[in-house]
C-alpha cells in the first residue's frame, strides 16, 4: 500500500458524503414540487455506494458512488382544490419525502464528512512528523 493511498481513501469518503449531501438536498428542495395530474411526481433519491479495493491485487477498500436510486415511496396526497396541479377531486400529489428523516440524514452526512476530514488531517500530520525526523539537528 502506498504512503498516500490512505489520503485517497479519506478523500473518497468525503466524495461519498458530498454525493449524499447532494441527494439529501435535492430531496429537501423538491419536497414541495408538484406536477400535473397523471404526470410522475418527484421521487426521493439515494446514492448507491460500494466498497472497492484500492488495487486489483486487493488492498484496503475505498467507498465509491456507483449511482443513484429512486426510493419507492408513495406520493403524499394533500387536499388543496385551489392548487393549479390539483386533480378533479381537489388533491395535489407531493413527493413522499420525509423532512425529519432528511434532516437527520443531513446531520449524519455532516458527521461523516467531519470524521473523514479528521482522519485525513491525522494521517497527514503523522506523515509530516515522520518526514520531519530527518530534518532535526
Amino acid at each position, binding site marked *: *500500500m502506498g504512503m498516500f*493511498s*490512505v489520503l485517497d*481513501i*479519506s478523500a*473518497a*469518503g468525503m466524495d*461519498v458524503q458530498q454525493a449524499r449531501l447532494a441527494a439529501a438536498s435535492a430531496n429537501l428542495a423538491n419536497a414541495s414540487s408538484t406536477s400535473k395530474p397523471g404526470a410522475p411526481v418527484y421521487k426521493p433519491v439515494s446514492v448507491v*455506494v*460500494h*466498497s472497492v479495493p484500492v488495487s486489483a491485487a486487493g488492498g*484496503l*477498500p*475505498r*467507498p465509491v458512488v456507483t449511482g443513484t436510486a429512486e426510493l419507492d415511496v408513495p406520493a403524499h396526497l394533500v387536499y388543496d382544490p385551489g392548487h393549479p396541479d390539483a386533480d378533479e377531486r381537489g388533491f395535489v400529489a407531493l413527493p413522499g419525502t420525509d423532512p425529519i428523516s432528511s434532516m437527520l440524514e443531513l446531520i*449524519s452526512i455532516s*458527521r*461523516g464528512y467531519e*470524521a*473523514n476530514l*479528521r*482522519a*485525513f488531517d*491525522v*494521517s497527514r*500530520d*503523522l506523515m509530516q*512528523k*515522520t518526514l520531519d*525526523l530527518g530534518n*532535526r*539537528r
Partner: protein
Amino acid sequence: MFEAAPIFSLLSHALDNAALRQAVHTTNIANAGVDGFHRLDLVFDTQLRALASSADEGAREPSWVGTQPRIVATNDAVRLDQEMALMAKDSVRYQALLGAFDRTTGLLRLAIHEGKGA
C-alpha cells in the same frame, strides 16, 4: 556497548504497523455506513502476545520482528465515535514511537561527536 541496529529494526517494524493501523482506521471511517462493509481490524497484538511468550531469551532481535499483521473483517458495523477514539489513541502511540526513534538517533549522534553534542 550500545547497539542501535536491533532498536532501529524494532522501531521501524513498530512504525510500519502503527501506520497500517492508521490506514485501517481511515478505511473504516471512509466506508462507515456502506452496505455490506464490516469493520476491519488488525490481528497483530494477538500474534505478538503468542510469540512474545515463547521468545528466546538470548536472541539479539525479538523473534516477532518479522511477523506481518493481517487485516481481517470483523462482524461489526463501524461506529464512528469508537473509530475516532481508537484513531486518536493509535496516533499518540505512533508519535511516541517517532519520539523513541528520534531519541535513539540522538544517542547515535552524541556517540559520533564523542559526547560533545551535535
